[in-house]
């Protein structure tokens, strides 16, 4: 512990339309990525399938990203695509090419009894209400999903707490589709708890209807051999709030893509994430907040810790404020805490603003080493090194844990963090 602080801040101040000189109604693209060449995935099909607003937008924009129900519309992956460039395709278990006919993980529902879980056929009209695959793996999952499981939270239900335990029992590549419908003015918390072993391409859609308040915790507590690509899309109606918390600890390669689209005014989206990558783990989170309508609010905060050789985390935060989305207030941040040498944290905030008439928009990304000055301060008060490290890391991640709002689950996560820390060899 000879280094002092090595925080590498890349903070950009919050920006609001009125205070920014040279910031026009045309908006601005703050993305460091979009200076680069045209995305290989965009094209004619991108426009015809995108969720509106795609026309006339440059192809490198998130608005121009190809979306399609047909896997053949997506070119074969090379690993050079914008949305795959960090993912080791060799380790993805063929989810982008294979026939996903393996046994899908078991789904068990516990908790409140005023909800219903039913299975619908692959051609049921409910599929895709709030979902369109936006990458090849997700489209492949769509193709091979043998129907879907639908959890419905009835209108006006209060205090619903449901747990969907997803237990993987096979390493044959499989597909799975879950649908969660939060009906009008319902209030619910749904935990999607992934355990066991699986090679899984998963699509989850959240239909958050008018005035509903839905909180989702997607917990990836897989065994260490699991491979999991999960596309989680939400459509958030007028006056609704959607709070999505991703917690990723387990698995060999986990790639979760939460995407949330405002479908009505005065809605609120909060996306939180917590990940802890150990040696050789690849944990990737790519989120997308689509401000397509006026007067909505979004907030994104992902925090991760990395330890051990070749622990790799990827965070990409796409926030798109479309021309129509005046009065938007949006902020996204990613913070990584590097505990040992030999890890790699990629962090790319990507904010596109097509209108200047917003309340505020901002992004931040920091990746810092464990700060030895923190350690010195705590140790100078008699606290041993191990405890001091634990205090700091727990404190760092606790901000997300606290968002969960369920004591039992919070305790389980705190314990998991402790276990992860206990394996640290420093």
């Amino acid at each position, binding site marked *: 512990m000879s280094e002092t602080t090595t925080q590498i801040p890349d903070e950009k101040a919050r920006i609001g339309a009125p205070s920014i000189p040279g910031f026009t109604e045309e908006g601005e693209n703050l993305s460091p990525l979009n200076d680069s060449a045209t995305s290989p995935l965009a094209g004619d099909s991108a426009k015809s399938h995108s969720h509106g607003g795609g026309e006339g937008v440059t192809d490198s924009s998130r608005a121009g990203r190809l979306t399609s129900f047909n896997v053949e519309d997506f070119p074969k992956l090379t690993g050079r695509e914008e949305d795959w460039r960090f993912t080791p395709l060799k380790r993805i278990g063929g989810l982008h090419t294979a026939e996903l006919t393996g046994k899908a993980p078991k789904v068990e529902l516990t908790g409140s009894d005023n909800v219903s879980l039913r299975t619908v056929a692959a051609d049921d009209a409910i599929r895709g209400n709030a979902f369109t695959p936006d990458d090849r793996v997700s489209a492949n999952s769509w193709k091979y999903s043998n129907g879907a499981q639908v959890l419905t939270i009835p209108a006006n239900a209060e205090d619903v707490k449901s747990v969907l335990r997803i237990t993987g029992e096979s390493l044959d590549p499989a597909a799975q589709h879950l649908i969660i419908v939060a009906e009008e003015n319902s209030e619910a918390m749904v935990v999607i708890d992934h355990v066991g072993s699986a090679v899984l391409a998963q699509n989850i859609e959240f239909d958050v209807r008018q005035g509903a308040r839905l909180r989702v915790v997607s917990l990836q507590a897989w065994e260490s051999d699991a491979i999991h690509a999960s596309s989680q899309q939400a459509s958030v109606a007028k006056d609704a709030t959607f709070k999505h918390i991703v917690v990723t600890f387990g698995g060999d390669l986990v790639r979760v893509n939460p995407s949330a689209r405002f479908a009505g005014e005065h809605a609120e989206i909060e996306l939180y994430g917590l990940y802890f990558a150990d040696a050789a783990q690849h944990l990737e989170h790519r989120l997308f907040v689509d401000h397509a309508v006026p007067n909505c609010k979004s907030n994104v905060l992902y925090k991760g810790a990395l330890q051990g050789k070749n622990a790799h985390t990827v965070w990409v935060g796409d926030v798109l404020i479309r021309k129509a989305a005046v009065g938007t207030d949006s902020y996204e941040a990613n913070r990584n805490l590097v505990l040992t040498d030999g890890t790699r944290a990629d962090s790319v905030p990507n904010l596109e603003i097509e209108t200047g008439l917003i309340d505020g928009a901002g992004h931040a990304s920091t990746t810092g080493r464990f700060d030895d000055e923190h350690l010195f301060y705590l140790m100078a008060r*008699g606290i041993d090194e191990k*405890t001091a490290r634990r*205090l700091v890391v727990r*404190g760092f991640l606790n901000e997300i844990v606290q968002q969960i709002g369920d004591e039992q689950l919070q305790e389980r996560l705190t314990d998991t963090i402790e276990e992860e820390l206990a394996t640290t060899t420093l």
Partner: protein
Amino acid sequence: MSTLEIKDLHVSIDTEQGEKEILKGVSLTINTNETHAIMGPNGSGKSTLASTIAGHPRYKVTSGSITLDGVDVLEMSVDERAKAGLFLAMQYPVEVPGVTMTNFLRTAKTAIDGEAPKLRTWTKDVKEAMAKLKIDADFAGRNVNEGFSGGEKKRVEILQMELFKPKFAILDETDSGLDVDALKTVSEGVNRAQDDNQMGTLLITHYTRILRYIKPDHVHVFVDGRIAEQGGPELADRLEDEGYDRFLNVKA
């Protein structure tokens, strides 16, 4: 009685230009119940001495010794030194995000005492100590030093000193950045710890003002990594009038 003894201490740091010697032979003996003031120009090595005693890894002791009642302090890890009864109130207390004061104070107290404090009395002790130092009760729920003003950080250092009851406290410019009232409040805290625990004090300061409240038995003038002169309280007044020119000229 306990004794903290520093003998011919040489300390270097690694800089981009190579190793640089900061302390060039410092000797100093402090007993419990004694107050020693250290004064000296900026950059003369006062904080280096303080941090070296506490065991900051940046400072390399190249020769000399530090002992506490004959036991080698340099052999101890940072936390062991704190447990042995040494306390450093830092010139720039560090912000520790995500760790609440309450959690921090209890964890530290447990570590220093070797057992968890009785919850009931501990909570009461903390509250009372905070009140005496005029620290608002809601600081307990805030993260360690995070967003505290300069003066608030200093007060919280003294709060810790009162709660952890060290044998020796090194106060590195604790008076800098304190308003007139806070200076009094903090000084009273130091005096309490001295009276209650026979604490020995090494007080690093630029100003004689604090010495009106915390009376030094000895004053040491620190210049260029050495003690250039020692004396009683009157030396401090002389320094205030004359500055350090006298010592700097001698050197040149």
